[in-house]
Every structure is written in C-alpha cells, then in structure tokens.
C-alpha cells in the first residue's frame, strides 16, 4: 500500500526588501516549504520617492528591494496597498510612537494581521518574518514578540526563522512542517550573523537601509507630519500629503498657511502635478522655483508668499522681482515684490 502523500505546506513571508526577511524566507524555502512573499505599501515606505522626484538622483540605478529579494529567492511577491487601513495605525497607535512618528509595534502587528487574513484567503499554512530578538528597540524585543503574535491574531502561526530557537515552538515546528533544529538563534543588534549567513547562502548586493525603509523613522519627515496635523487640527491625511511632505523646502510663515518650495528642476516638475490643487507661485522676471501654498491665505499672505518666492529665485539680489500667483482654476495675477531678506525669520519658519 502506498503511503499517503505528504501535504505541501505553504508559508507567506513578509518581505520588506531588507536582508533579514530575505534570509528568513530562504531558511524556510530550504526546508521544502512553498513560500510566497508579501510586501505592504503604507505610503511611508518611500525609499524610491526622492530618487524618482529629484533630478540629481536620477542617474543612480534604482530598484525596488522587495522585488529584488523575491527575484533572488525565486518566489512570487504580492505587493499590497494598505494606505487606507494603515491610517488608523499611524493616527492612533495603541503602543505609541518610537523616537519619531514611527508606530513600529502597532505597524508590525498590523502587517502580520494583514498576513493572517491573506493566508486564510489563499489557503496558506503559516507566516514568516525576518524579526530578530533585540534587533529593533521598539518592535523587535523579547517582550514584544508575543504581543505581535497575539495582537495580530497570528498566534502560533507566526514563525521567526532567524531567532526561532530562542522562542517557544510555533505550530509549524510542533507539527514537524519545519525542523526547529535547522532554525536559528540570532539575537541582538549585531548584523554579523546575518552577513555571515548571507555570504554562506550566496546573497550579494542586498539592501541594508538604516532605520528600515520607513519615512516615519526620519526626524525631519516626522516634524513636517506633526506640523501638518497641528495646522489642520486633525490627524487625517491623504497619500498626496505623504508625498508632498518629502518634497521641497517647507516654510510656515503663519499658522494658517505654509509654502512648499521646489529645490530643483525635478521637484518643480513633480510639484507641477499639484497645480490644480493648490494656489501656486512662480517667478517671471528671474528663474525660480515653483511654490505651492497649503492652507488658506488672504491678500497680505499672498504678498508675503510672493516675497519669499522671490527670495528663492535667481533674482534674490534684485530690487524687485515679478511673481505670478495662480489659483486652482488657473486665474493668475502678477505681483512686483521685494525679495524677502530676513534670513533669521526664514530659519524660524523652516519646518
């Protein structure tokens, strides 16, 4: 009598594009598990955005590291847009924020929770992540690992291959779908074991972004986000807000409005796409930036905005500069202004 065929077990791997998730997936693939990758796009994982916008960066080759990881592993990758559901995570994180506006623990629970739904819909058996105990101060600690497993609903379906030997056995281990002895015991902030394993497995040219690939770990970006929320008196945001926080100089001369000033040709071009959404300014008598106004303005505010626009143009040393002010409907007027010259004030207004 033939032995019943062993069921092919399937795991979904959270692929960030970094080294740890690449290695975790590889360790499980090598145990004969069918692995597919999943990558969640929150709107803040924007490693490519600056590159895409700023002209000076365009000469550098660019790649999406999650796609690159999947290609190295020879697996499918599902990129999932979670911009809308992620808003609640960022706006109201139950575990609070990290050093900046990064809600890492809630974010991890959210993503694993999304993966739980995905494996149910796609008939997969378990979830793997590249988490390592002690690797990150907020989300990857010994005491937070069970929090993520519990709050995501994954429970013992969540396997962390890189540190599994330091954690209680999960269902895939208990059931013998994977061999616990072949899992790893990485621990702490050192990257040495990961680098050694990568070399052993033949991975080269892998991404190692400092602080991950999330803008919310960046202080300047977080300051701009907080300013936006304070100015609007609400934490609500749209994807366009997320994008524009990364572009240009942000200057808030008054609580009711701020200026987004293109720093170079690539940014000006990108911002041109927003001309129908914002009052915008540009210089006529000298070369200068495109400037978007976010907020509500009166005539005096527009005069000040024009003076600041002139300050960032090539006519900043001139007595007067002609600035066009155009509203969202394309109605424009010209203002002849003296370029703003109070540098100390400008510094204070910088976000």
């Amino acid at each position, binding site marked *: 009598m033939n032995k019943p065929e062993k069921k092919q077990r399937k795991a979904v791997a959270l692929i960030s594009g970094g080294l740890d998730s690449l290695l975790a997936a590889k360790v499980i693939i090598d145990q004969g598990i069918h692995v597919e990758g999943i990558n969640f796009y929150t709107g803040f994982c*924007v490693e*490519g955005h600056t590159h895409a916008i700023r002209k000076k960066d365009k000469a550098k080759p660019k790649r*999406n590291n999650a796609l690159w990881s999947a290609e190295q592993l020879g697996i499918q*990758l599902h990129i999932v847009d979670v911009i809308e559901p992620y808003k609640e995570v960022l706006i109201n994180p139950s575990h609070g924020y990290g050093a900046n506006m990064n809600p890492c623990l809630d974010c991890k629970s959210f993503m694993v929770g999304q993966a739980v739904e995905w494996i149910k819909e796609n008939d997969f058996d378990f979830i793997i992540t590249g988490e390592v105990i002690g690797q990150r101060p907020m989300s990857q600690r010994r005491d937070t690992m069970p929090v993520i497993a519990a709050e995501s609903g994954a429970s013992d379906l969540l396997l962390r291959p890189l540190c599994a030997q330091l954690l209680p056995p999960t269902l895939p281990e208990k059931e013998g779908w994977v061999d616990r002895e072949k899992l790893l015991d990485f621990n702490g902030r050192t990257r040495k074991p990961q680098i050694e394993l990568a070399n052993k497995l033949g991975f080269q040219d892998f991404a190692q972004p400092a602080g991950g690939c999330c803008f919310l770990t960046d202080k300047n970006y977080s300051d701009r986000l907080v300013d936006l929320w304070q100015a609007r008196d609400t934490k609500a945001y749209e994807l366009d807000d997320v994008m524009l926080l990364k572009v240009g100089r942000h200057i808030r001369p008054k609580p009711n409005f701020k200026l987004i000033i293109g720093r170079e040709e690539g940014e000006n071009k990108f911002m041109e796409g927003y001309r129908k959404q914002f009052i915008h300014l540009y210089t006529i008598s000298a070369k200068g930036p495109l400037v978007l106004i976010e907020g509500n303005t009166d005539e005096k505010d527009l005069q000040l905005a024009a003076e600041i626009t002139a300050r960032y143009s090539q006519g900043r040393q001139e007595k007067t500069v002609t600035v066009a002010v155009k509203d969202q409907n394309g109605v424009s007027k010209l203002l002849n202004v003296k370029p703003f010259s109070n540098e100390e004030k400008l510094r204070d207004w910088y976000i």
Partner: protein
Amino acid sequence: MSHHILDAKRLLCPMPVIRTQNKVKQLSPGDILDVICTDPGVTSDIPAWCRITGHRFIDVKSDADEIVIRIEIRSRD
C-alpha cells in the same frame, strides 16, 4: 487578445507596480497592457515584477514627459 492601457502617471513606485498587478488580474492570457508612467523607477520595477510573475515584458518607450511599458499577459499554468 486585446490591448489595454493603464494610466499610472504621477504615481511613485511601488504604486505603478501595484496598479499593474491589480489590472493584470482582470486580463486574459495574451492580452497586451501598456502602463503609462512618469516615475523612472518603473523601468526597473515593472520588468522585475514581470520576471517573478512570468508575464512578458515587451519593451519600454519614453520621452521627456512619460514612460510607456508594454507587457503581455502570460498564459495561466
């Protein structure tokens, strides 16, 4: 076989890839899809996505304003 257009202009990566991935689910094997983009990152990302999903990357055409990536939907295994 039919020819489809996906407007992904002004979207930054990975959104053009996500839109392509979602659009392809509605198409049939052999269909041609032109993805119109402005983010130069698509010239590496969409071909990479094609390689891991098995869809055929045909070519990329670009001018100063936009990039058009043409792909052919693979037959279902």
